[in-house]
């Protein structure tokens, strides 16, 4: 680490005012503060305890928490491909994993390059330091899109989301809507046949660099929720498979177990709020149970929680501190309503089998209102107490 520190210090003058690489100052800044905790405190006078946990470190934790889901997702891509081609017996674990890795890697690269590129440019132009909010969004985005998404529309969607959902509002920490979900929403509404309609989007079709198998042309596989929307009453995958995650779906969202590992890390480090996570599940379970009891949905509550992007959204996207409710009481309401809306959209609207994205975006809109209600109530309660005294 010392060598790295010395290297950073050595090249620093190039990026100062007048230095020849001054235009890339924000780039240098970004890497410097990412690798090493900056040595600044909030104020100049007084005594301040310097906490090594700042925004960049927190983001790093979230990225680490996402890694199990990402790795499993890659394996699942290879698994589904082998399953579809009928080659499951011959396929090896590593063969399937590396195939999935190669399929997902270009998306990761595109997501980061486009997103960070725009952020760096804006930071440079506004003469501010780079903000690290895209670190998490950048890894989430490839995990919530189907594996066959063309790269150019992914790039377009990332650019759209970073500019219109983040930068124009003021950058990291100022966005109203979850950036990764805006990316997915843009893709969903702009290119629906690449995102859900075709049913050939969920399983990778062709070999990459010699790995993987070619899937026959007539193959099509719907996600379990897609099957329900088309009127199938019993699913083609078992509950066990659904929990482990060996079902068609977006790259990172299928495995409950992998997501649970990430959730444990986030809860243990205190990075995500357990109230939000719990209330999303409670909301979804209660609503799912109601719809099942009313006969509107063939799935029971457990299945609703396990299928689609529900777990992933509950753990990683509903808990995003910038866009969720901030008050403790507000988090309960916020989470419950997300679960409620997600299951409602899935069950009642035949056009949108996956409702989590829309539910979270909708509640993002209401989060400030929820907070305002709680804060006002607190203020009036305190005023009452003060009057009584």
């Amino acid at each position: 680490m010392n060598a790295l520190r010395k290297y950073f210090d050595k090249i620093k003058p190039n990026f100062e005012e007048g230095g020849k690489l001054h235009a890339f100052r924000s780039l240098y800044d970004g890497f410097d503060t990412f690798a090493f905790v900056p040595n600044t405190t909030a104020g100049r006078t007084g005594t301040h305890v310097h906490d090594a946990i700042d925004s960049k470190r927190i983001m790093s934790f979230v990225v680490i928490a996402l890694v199990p889901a990402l790795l499993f997702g890659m394996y699942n891509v290879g698994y589904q491909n082998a399953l579809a081609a009928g080659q499951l017996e011959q396929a090896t674990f590593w063969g399937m994993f590396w195939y999935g890795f190669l399929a997902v890697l270009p998306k990761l690269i595109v997501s980061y390059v486009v997103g960070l590129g725009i952020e760096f440019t804006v930071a440079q132009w506004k003469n501010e330091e780079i903000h690290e909010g895209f670190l998490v969004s950048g890894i989430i985005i490839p995990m919530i899109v189907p594996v066959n998404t063309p790269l150019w529309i992914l790039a377009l969607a990332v650019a759209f989301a970073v500019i219109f959902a983040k930068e124009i509002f003021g950058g990291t920490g100022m966005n109203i809507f979850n950036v990764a979900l805006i990316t997915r929403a843009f893709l969903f509404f702009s290119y629906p046949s690449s995102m859900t309609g075709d049913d050939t989007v969920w399983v990778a079709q062709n070999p990459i660099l010699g790995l993987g198998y070619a899937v026959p042309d007539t193959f099509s596989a719907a996600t379990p929720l897609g099957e329900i929307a088309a009127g199938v009453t019993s699913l083609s995958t078992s509950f066990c498979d659904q929990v482990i995650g060996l079902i068609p779906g977006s790259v990172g969202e299928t495995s409950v177990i992998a997501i649970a590992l990430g959730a444990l890390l986030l809860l243990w480090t205190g990075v995500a709020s357990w109230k939000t996570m719990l209330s999303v599940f409670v909301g979804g379970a209660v609503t799912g149970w109601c719809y099942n009891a009313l006969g509107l949905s063939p799935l029971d509550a457990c299945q609703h929680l396990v299928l689609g992007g529900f777990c992933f959204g509950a753990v990683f996207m509903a808990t995003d501190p910038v866009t969720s409710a901030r008050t403790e009481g507000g988090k309960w309401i916020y989470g419950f309503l997300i679960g409620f809306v997600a299951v409602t959209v899935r069950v009642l609207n035949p056009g949108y089998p996956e409702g989590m994205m829309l539910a979270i975006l909708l509640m993002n809109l209401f989060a400030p209102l929820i907070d305002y209600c709680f804060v006002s109530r607190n203020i009036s309660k305190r005023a009452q107490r003060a009057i009584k005294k």
Partner: protein
Amino acid sequence: MAKKFYCSQCGQTFEAASMPDKCPICGADTSHLTEVKSKGINTNGNIYTICYAAVMVILVAFLLAFVSSALKSKQDANVAIDKKSQILASLNVRGLAKSEVEGKYNELIQETCVLTPDGQVLEGEDAFGVDTKEIGEKFPVYRSKTADGADALVLPLKGRGLWGGLWGYVAVTPDLQKVLGAYFDHESETAGLGALIKEAKFQEQFIGRPVLGEDGNVALTVVKKGSSTAETEVDGVTGATLTSKGVGEMVLTGIQQYVNALGGSKPSGCCQKAEGCGGCGGKEGCDKPCCQGESEQAE
């Protein structure tokens, strides 16, 4: 209403909503400004207001009624031409200029009739005048020829898509065995997905398909692309599952209703082939409704 003010400094009159702080022309202060009351009627009086409103309303009503009646025939002609081009599309005549539609329609459509669900001919009803909403109680049938000269029956259909209503015209051979052409349209399906049923590409898939299944009932329908198991199953639009399903339903149940009304697969009523009307040449004693001299052809 604008008020007039007179400025004694510059001698000009100007208009403003209310007394301004100074004259906008020469800058004199309010002491030089006086309001000029309009001579004549007090426009804020009650009687004046009521009379004004009454006169205005009557004038406007007359004007609109005049315009509407003057243009009505042109508008009705437009609606009719639109419907005719849709029917012609089901007979595989597309892309006609507005002026040609009328002529081509008269050339291809031989005669029409309206049937009840159990096959009775409804006298005095004009098939072209039957609105899409009424299909299901009344069944208009058009006996016509396709673009290549084959005999055909055009059957108007009504259905429901994902977001709104669907309708269409399917042209079948007179013995109801084969489809010769189709046209579908929608009220509000999704652009780029469900709306594609309006494209020729989707509609042309129907040409040549058999209508009936092995059991003699209508089996023509729309299924998901790639999953068709019989000639009677047409591929739907990729990504528009529910709209395609709607079209399939419409075609399946709609044509079955016509088959029932026409008395099984051998049509009866005034649209019988072979001894068909128009072909009996005004034979003596022909008592079929369409030979009664009155033309049932649409305008």
